[in-house]
């Protein structure tokens, strides 16, 4: 390899023209981060989709039929129908949270993927927004659609109206991926995520009306539940899937969006401090 004549010429020695994209200002750069994550997901698509389908199916069949057999009608509907709306929210929350915690943290701290992206003409905001939309919209929607299919399959919902939960699924996803990204950008190891699940996600699951109506909770706890974002997701989704009028749709949407936007804005600031100090 010391023979200079044997060296391959440098590909395109023009110097910086190829990389200067004419649409540099126009393109929505977080899309490149979403695209990257999508290509990885596509490689593991099969197992991921099976998980998305089987997990809620087991919950719905096990709890819905098993436990439902002992229960009277809840809110005037069979327990399975009541539970399905809650499961849709719970699975969406989980799916977005897992992606924005463990997976995003791997890309931030273990694989240094974010660092690599920042060596290209991308900013911390591009990266965090991309992760937020990937976990909160794409992954949440994948899991939401899977559960909706299960619900159609079990005859819990029919017609076209239940499809209007899909924008709500995205709202729930963006809400929880935003909050999770704050934890991720602060985290120094995967251990923080176990705490977050134990202290935030699990109480959220039990207090937000996923498994039982919130009005069976004591008054004080019910007040706490009202500030939990998942409660607002459950209210929207249950209203839609049970075909009932929504009580406070704008408030519900505002709370979910507020948590999500606040979370991602904070995560961008923290990530900037962490990566560009």
């Amino acid at each position, binding site marked *: 390899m010391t023979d200079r004549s044997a060296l391959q010429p440098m590909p395109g020695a023009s110097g910086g023209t190829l*990389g200067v994209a004419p649409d540099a200002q126009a393109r929505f750069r977080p899309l490149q981060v979403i695209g990257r994550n999508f290509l990885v997901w596509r490689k593991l698509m099969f197992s991921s989709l099976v998980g998305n389908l089987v997990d809620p199916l087991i919950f719905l069949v096990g709890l819905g039929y098993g436990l439902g057999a002992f229960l009277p009608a809840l809110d005037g509907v069979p327990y399975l129908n009541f539970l399905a709306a809650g499961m849709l929210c719970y699975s969406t929350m989980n799916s977005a949270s897992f992606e924005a915690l463990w997976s995003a943290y791997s890309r931030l701290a273990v694989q240094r993927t974010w660092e690599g992206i920042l060596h290209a003409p991308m900013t911390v905001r591009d990266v965090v927004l991309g992760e937020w939309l990937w976990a909160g919209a794409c992954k949440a929607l994948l899991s939401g659609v899977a559960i909706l299919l299960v619900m159609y399959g079990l005859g819990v919902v029919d017609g076209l109206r239940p499809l209007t939960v899909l924008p709500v699924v995205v709202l729930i996803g963006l809400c929880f991926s935003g909050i999770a990204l704050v934890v991720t950008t602060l985290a120094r190891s995967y251990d923080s995520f176990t705490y977050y699940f134990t202290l935030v996600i699990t109480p959220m699951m039990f207090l937000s009306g996923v498994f039982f109506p919130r009005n069976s909770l004591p008054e004080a706890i019910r007040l706490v539940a009202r500030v939990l974002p998942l409660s607002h997701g459950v209210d929207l989704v249950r209203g839609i899937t049970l075909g009932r009028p929504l009580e406070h749709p704008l408030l519900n949407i505002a709370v979910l969006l507020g948590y999500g936007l606040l979370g991602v804005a904070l995560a961008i600031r923290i990530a900037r401090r962490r990566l560009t100090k």
Partner: protein
Amino acid sequence: MTDPVPTAAVLAVRELRKSYGGVPAVRGVGFAVPAGECFGLLGPNGAGKTTTLRCCLGLTAPDSGTVELAGLPVPQAAREARYRVGVVPQFDNLDPDFTVTENLVIFARYFGIPAAQARANVPKLLEFAGLGDKATAKIDALSGGMKRRLTIARSLVNDPQVIFMDEPTTGLDPQARHLVWDRLKSLLNAGKTLILTTHFMDEAERLCQRVGIMDRGELIALDSPRNLIEREIEPQVVEIYGDGVRDWAAAFGRTASSRIEVAGETAFCYAHDATALLATLDGWPRLRALKRAANLEDVFIKLTGRDIRD
């Protein structure tokens, strides 16, 4: 110290300062790199090399001072400047979820390069990196040297004017290092500007037209390796080691050499003519001597000392 900024500079750094929690990391560094040069930033651990590099790329905002990269002010227009810049980081951050080819194509997307164009460039890049037969290999299947070459290939996806490399051969075996050097020379022949940090003086001496030596956040020397050696140090070095080296040094060290340093069991003797010095060894059969020409490492040690920096 500061050197005048030529108009054709690809990188111009002036009076750069950066502190972390009140502790200065970079204290008034200034230098300029003309197009086509290989510039090396040397210094012990903690000298401020990596901080300087990060400021140049706009990944860290300096407390004061200015950086101009590819004609653009940094950090203000750092993102735009990076369209013309390649980066080879100290720690590989290749994407382990992707194959060799996918790594190049996906990195090109971050520059807004269309996938078809990026894919068309892959064979040339892999050929250049000596990875022509690894197009579909997983990253885990590559050796350390291959990963480094792929990272270099990745830094070229946007056909940059200037490439920053943070310790490009650290952790590689000698064969892999020589191959990387060879590739870097080929980049220089193609007219690219290289800015690298390194701990290896032979690497700097071999590749760099000019080196800047940093210590404690300051640039303490800036010139070609040859000029630094001529100016800073005696031309001949004799390393003497073995039992009784300290006795010999006490008896002859000061008189036979113009400068002597004893480190551990070795005496480093610097001289303009080592003949007389070598003659003093006749009565010391247990001592061994190695005579060699002064090199950049001698300059580095003279300027930054022998103390360990952690």
